[in-house]
């Protein structure tokens, strides 16, 4: 594999010399996301495979190009999971893309995000230097937390080669419950239940129904089911459809907005809505006007992203001037030649 790294290094150094943009890419399952997709493709799939996994350490390390499904199969053999339940958005999604995108699935509000589970990275910077940050241990506060900074950076700060994540045992049993109610009542119920010691692992409100998933020890799940009531739903298909956006709600959406808000925010009346994460994540379809979406999100203590757009690429929430300057300076510090995915995340960096 060292020859692959060498090739990556040559590609990066050559691009840096020419100041030519590079587009770090796995299978392209998240190509829909971002402002601009400029540059020659650097395909991470050449660098694939599990580096180290010992189930009793709860630490898993793999190369960026490893298919995400392969990662999850290896974990499942030991009854373990990626606790942030990442969406794949394509059959060949890679582990590297999963972390670079930093997207998390239904379990996020209860277990944490992709970023939360990152323990360490090995990466190449814009000089092609081979760097390691964080580690393969649960707790590590030596140096700035560069590895978690990579989560959600979409390959704009460097080429991540290997990632170590914390993994957890999967639940003994899961049970989904369905409740008919209106949106306001659902927001209230999700938040109230999240404040109680219940084995919640997902909530979603769509089509006048609240869906709640319980996960954990059989005894705890059945006790909670008794307490909450609702109609029992078989299987995991519903949560798959929410996570992968194959649910009919997403089907004919020209534009898909993602609003990340304070969980108790009242219904927004901006268009058809699917809410997750106790109401702190709201998906809204319809061609909402940009400024109105941004303003609504800000008034609900959050931000909005045009996640998918019928045209070509999505728009990401503007940053205030202070944060914009800081983000821009950070990008320049870590990628002085500006070769890694320029303007994918923001028009100005």
């Amino acid at each position, binding site marked *: 594999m060292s020859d692959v790294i060498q090739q990556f290094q040559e590609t990066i150094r050559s691009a840096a010399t020419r100041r030519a943009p590079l587009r770090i890419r796995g299978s392209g399952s998240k190509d829909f996301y971002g402002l601009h997709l400029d540059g020659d493709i650097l395909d991470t799939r050449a660098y694939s495979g599990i580096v180290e996994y010992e189930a009793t350490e709860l630490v898993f*390390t793999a190369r960026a190009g490893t298919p995400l499904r392969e990662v999850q199969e290896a974990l499942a053999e030991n009854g373990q999971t990626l606790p942030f339940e990442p969406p794949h958005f394509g059959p060949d999604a890679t582990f590297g893309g999963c972390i670079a995108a930093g997207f998390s699935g239904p379990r996020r509000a209860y277990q944490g995000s992709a970023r939360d589970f990152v323990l360490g990275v090995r990466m190449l910077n814009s000089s092609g230097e081979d760097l390691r940050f964080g580690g*393969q241990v*649960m707790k590590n506060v030596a*140096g700035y*937390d560069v590895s978690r900074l990579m989560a959600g950076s979409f390959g704009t700060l460097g080429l991540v080669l290997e990632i170590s994540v914390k993994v957890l045992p999967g639940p003994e049993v899961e049970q989904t419950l369905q409740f008919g109610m209106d949106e306001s009542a659902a927001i209230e119920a999700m938040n109230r239940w999240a404040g109680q*010691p219940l084995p919640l692992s997902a909530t979603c409100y769509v089509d006048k129904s609240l869906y709640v998933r319980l996960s954990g020890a059989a005894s705890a799940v059945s006790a909670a089911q008794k307490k909450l009531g609702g109609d029992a739903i078989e299987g995991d298909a519903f949560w798959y459809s929410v996570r992968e956006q194959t649910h009919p709600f997403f089907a004919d959406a020209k534009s898909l907005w993602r609003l990340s808000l304070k969980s108790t925010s009242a219904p927004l009346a901006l268009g058809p809505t699917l809410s997750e994460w106790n109401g702190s994540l709201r998906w809204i379809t319809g061609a909402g006007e940009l400024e109105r979406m941004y303003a609504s999100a800000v008034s609900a203590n*959050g931000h909005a992203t045009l996640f998918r757009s019928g045209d070509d690429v999505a728009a990401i929430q503007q940053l205030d001037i202070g944060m914009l300057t800081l*983000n821009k300076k*950070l990008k320049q510090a*870590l990628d002085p030649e500006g070769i890694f995915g320029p303007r994918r995340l923001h028009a100005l960096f």
Partner: protein
Amino acid sequence: MGKPEHFPSETAKPAISKAELVRRLSSVLPEASLLHEEEDLRPFECDGLTAYRKIPLVVALPENERQVQAVLEVCHRGRVPVVFRGAGTGLSGGALPYEHGVLLGLSKLKNILDIDPLARIARVQPGVRNAAISEAASVHGLYYAPDPSSQIACSIGGNVAENSGGVHCLKYGLTVHNIMKVRFITIDGELLEIGGEGFDAPGYDLLALVTGSEGLLGVVTEITVKLLPSPVKAQVVLAAFDDIGKAADAVANIIGAGIVPAGLEMMDKKATGAVEQFIGAGYPLDAEATLLCESDGTEEEVADEISRMTDVLNTAGATEVRISRNEAERLKLWAGRKSAFPAVGRIQPDYFCLDGTIPRKQLSNVLKRIEEMETTFNLQCANVFHAGDGNLHPLVMFDASDDDQLHRAEKYGAAILELCVEVGGTITGEHGVGIEKINQMCVQFQTRELNTFHAIKFVFDEHGLLNPGKAVPTLQRCAEFGAMHVHVGEEKFPDLPRF
């Protein structure tokens, strides 16, 4: 990167005199918030790492965010170095004053601003004590999860600066996992909101970057923390083992069985011996290793988990397994663990508390080698261990009034940290680098990684005014340290997974 144009300095000096600094600060601070006489400065000379002491030029104790901002503006304009201090309980010297700079204490910003029980968040000022958050939230059946052992005294601002952990972090995470947003002021006085009240924020994840940055990038003046529902029940199992290796295997088997305990702690014989003399927690004195394994959750979850844990511990060859029968018993068993440091302090006048993290499978090996080093350095070392997450706290005992013992203890500590790096771990799991482990950073990181850290530092603090000489060593320091030291370099261990 790769072209370090901006070397940080460990010897930054202000561009203005002390008298001028005092004059400028007194125009932005109330009289009682500015200390500059020697006898007033003395109480601030050190933090929890008492082996190192320095007197700052002045101590500023602003009463509100606006004053924090004003102090930083004054310092930035006068190129005056600044060190931040919360409650001063840190163990790595992160709040050790800088003799040519201001010590900026956040202790007067101590209000809980708001608790929103339905959204399960609290907005607090940095000087609020960690435990005070949970106390205030308890009426809503909520609590703040990270619980460093100093939680009755340490402040949440300091927790953010150090990314503090605690006994329960295997299950509930570190500070970085339990905060949503901070109000953050950079050295030039700019106020930023980092993070958000939703689960994510636009742009790069700067919240992760500033958490644990040890006061090198800026200061937090307000923190929005997550609150979790208090578990209905908690119960602890004590298990004794006649062999450290068996205890380590038991820990692996618990995790292997799919259990994530709320707390999983190990103590060696020296540590339990010290604790028993100190408070009599009822630990078995003849055990080579004692495990405390806690379950929390609903009644059903705890009953299930305790029974599964007990099975695993018995199968692993525990010589004794004892389950707490009530809350008083549970607290007594934990009281022993939590008093391990002062207990060791009673046996020997001084000790260094180290903080390496190792892959758990290396535990027997590492403990054996730490024990062998007792002979090399002619000093004793007790071990307490956050076994669940691999965070080891060896306590190297010595008498600081004997210069030679102090010197040997420093060398012993350094050798243990380098051993942690050698087996694939890290020099600090939760206490931070501060001044204490600054040289060992040269062992853990190569020049190219340090350059990345310096580039990040430059983004936030281009004149290198914040906490000079701490957390991230200069290349010059590492060159000097390397010259007199055997490096755990790439040539020596080419196959070592080291990140």
